[in-house]
C-alpha cells in the first residue's frame, strides 16, 4: 500500500526532486504502468495471432479451399468494398440487426420492469419466460420464413426472439435487486410510486440492464447469421453462404471477420455508454 502510494506520488510530481528512498523500499510499477503492460501484451497477442494466420495460409495449408491467409481475405474485402457489394450486404445485415435488437431492447426492458413491479404480471409471464429462455429459439427460423417470407421481417423476428429474453431477465433481476435500504429512504422522504421507480429502481437496475443488452447483442448477431444462412437474398450471412457453396473460403472468412468486428465494436460502444450513464461505477474503479 505505502509502496504503491509512494510510486503514485512520484509519478504525479515529476518535476519535484526525487527524495531518497529508505533502503529496502523499492518502487513497484505504478497502476498506469501496469495498465500499459497489460495493453502491450494484448497488442502483441493480436499481432502474433494475425501473423500465425497469415503464415498458416501461406505455408502450412496452401489449398485455398481449406484455408485462406489474412492477406487474401483482406484483398477480397477490398475488391468487394470497391465494387459496392460489401456495403450493400453490410447495410442489409445492419438494418436487420438494428431493428431486431432495438425491438428486443424496448420490449425486453419494458416487460422486465413490468414483471419486477407487478406480482400478477410476474406470476403470469414467469413460466413462459423460463420456457423460452431455455429453448433453442433459432429452431423457429423455418417457421418465421413461412409467415414473414424471405425478406427483412423474418430476420427481424428471429433476432428479436433470441435477443429479448436475456434483456428481459436482466432488467427484471435489476429491479428486484434494488437495495431495500434505499427503498426505505424513498419511503421516509415520501416518494410517490412513480418517483420510487424513476429515482430508485431504474438507476439501481441500470447496470443489470447494460449486462442484459450486452448478452442481447451477442445473441442478436447470432440471429442475423442464422436468419441469413437459412434463406436470404442479401446480407453478410448470405455472402458467407453463397461463398461457401462456391468454395470461396476467403470470402467466408471475410464474412465471419466482419461479424466478429461488428460484435467487438458494439460491445465497446456499450462499454462507453455504461461509463456515460453510470459514472458512479467508474469512480469505484478509480478510487480503490
Amino acid at each position, binding site marked *: 500500500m505505502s509502496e504503491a502510494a509512494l510510486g503514485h506520488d512520484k509519478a504525479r510530481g515529476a518535476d519535484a526532486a526525487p527524495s531518497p528512498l529508505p533502503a529496502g523500499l523499492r518502487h513497484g510499477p505504478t497502476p498506469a504502468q501496469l495498465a500499459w503492460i497489460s495493453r502491450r501484451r494484448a497488442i502483441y497477442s493480436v499481432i502474433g495471432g494475425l501473423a500465425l494466420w497469415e503464415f498458416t495460409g501461406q505455408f502450412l495449408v496452401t489449398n485455398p479451399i481449406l484455408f485462406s491467409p489474412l492477406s487474401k481475405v483482406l484483398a477480397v474485402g477490398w475488391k468487394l468494398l470497391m465494387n459496392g457489394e460489401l456495403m450493400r450486404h453490410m447495410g442489409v445485415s445492419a438494418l436487420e440487426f438494428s431493428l431486431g435488437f432495438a425491438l428486443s431492447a424496448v420490449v425486453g426492458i419494458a416487460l422486465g420492469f413490468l414483471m419486477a413491479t407487478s406480482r400478477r404480471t410476474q406470476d403470469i409471464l414467469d413460466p413462459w419466460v423460463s420456457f423460452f429462455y431455455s429453448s433453442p429459439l433459432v429452431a423457429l427460423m423455418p417457421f418465421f420464413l413461412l409467415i414473414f417470407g424471405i425478406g427483412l421481417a423474418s430476420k427481424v423476428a428471429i433476432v428479436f426472439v433470441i435477443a429479448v429474453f436475456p434483456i428481459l431477465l436482466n432488467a427484471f433481476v435489476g429491479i428486484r435487486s434494488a437495495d431495500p*435500504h434505499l427503498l*426505505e*429512504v424513498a*419511503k*421516509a422522504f415520501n416518494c410517490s410510486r412513480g*418517483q420510487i421507480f424513476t*429515482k430508485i429502481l431504474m*438507476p439501481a437496475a441500470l447496470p443489470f440492464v447494460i449486462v442484459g443488452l450486452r448478452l442481447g447483442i451477442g445473441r442478436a448477431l447470432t440471429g442475423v447469421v442464422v436468419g441469413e444462412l437459412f434463406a436470404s437474398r442479401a446480407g453478410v450471412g448470405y455472402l458467407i453462404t453463397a461463398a461457401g457453396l462456391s468454395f470461396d473460403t476467403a470470402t467466408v472468412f471475410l464474412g465471419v471477420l466482419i461479424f466478429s468486428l461488428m460484435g467487438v465494436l458494439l460491445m465497446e460502444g456499450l462499454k462507453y455508454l455504461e461509463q456515460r450513464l453510470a459514472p*458512479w461505477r467508474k469512480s469505484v474503479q478509480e478510487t480503490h
Partner: protein
Amino acid sequence: MTAKLQVSNLSKYFLTRDGEPRKVLDSISLDIATNEFVCIVGASGCGKTTFIRAIGGLVPAEEGEVRIDGKLVEGPGGDRGFVFQHDSLLPWRTVLDNVVFGLEVRGVKPAASHPLAESLLKLVGLTGFAQHYPNELSGGMRQRVNLARALAIDPDVLLMDEPFAALDAQTREIMQRELLKIWAQKRKTVLFITHQIDEAAYLADRVLVFSSRPGRVAADIAIPFPRPRALSLKRSPEFLKIVDEIWTLIEQEVVASMQVEPG
C-alpha cells in the same frame, strides 16, 4: 412548555411465523419538548429501532397515536427528517444530489435547492465534496451527508436511528461533538436511538431507557450537564456516574437478551 412530539399509548405488534401476534412495543407514551434532544437506549431487540420507524411512519403502529405540534401524523411526512443507521445514500447520485433528494421529491427546483444544499454541506464540514460520489467518501463523511439530507427538508423533528453505530470509535466521538454543534445552530427537536450509553448521556437532555420484550419506557433520566459540552465531559466523574446509573438499569435486560430463545 408544549410538546413538539407527542406519543401516546403507542403499541406495535408483529406476526410470528405461526401467525400469532406478538407485542413488540407496549403502549409507549412520551412528550418531547421543542428543541429538546432525547436519546433512547436499550438492549438489542428491545424495539427501539421499531419505535423510531413507527414515529417516522416507515412501519404502521396498530395502537396509539403520534402528534407533532398537536397535529396527528400518519405515514411519513416532511415534518420528520430521518437519518438512517446504514449506508443509505443513493450511490448513483453525487453528494449534492443526495442532499437535495428530499427537496427534489417535493418539486423544489435546483435553483432553490442547490444553494441550500451547499450551505448544509458547509455546516456538516463537507465543503468541496459536492460533486463526489458516496463511494469516494469515508463512513463518517457519508453520515454527514445523511444528516445534511435530513436537514435539507427542514423538518420539525429529526429522527436518528443509530447513525454512528457503524463508525469507528474515534470518528464516532468526533461526529457526536459535530452533531451537538449543528444542533446548537439549527435548533431541532431530536429523537436519537443508540445502544451506547455514553453516547446517549453525552448528547441528550433526557435519556429514555427501554426495557425489552415488549419494549416499554423503563426510566426517564434527565441529563443535567450544561451546554456546550466538550468531549472531555465523558471522562468526568459526574458523567461516569450517570452512565453507570443507566447501565445498572439495563444490565439485566442486556443479559436477558443474550439468553433469549430464537423465534
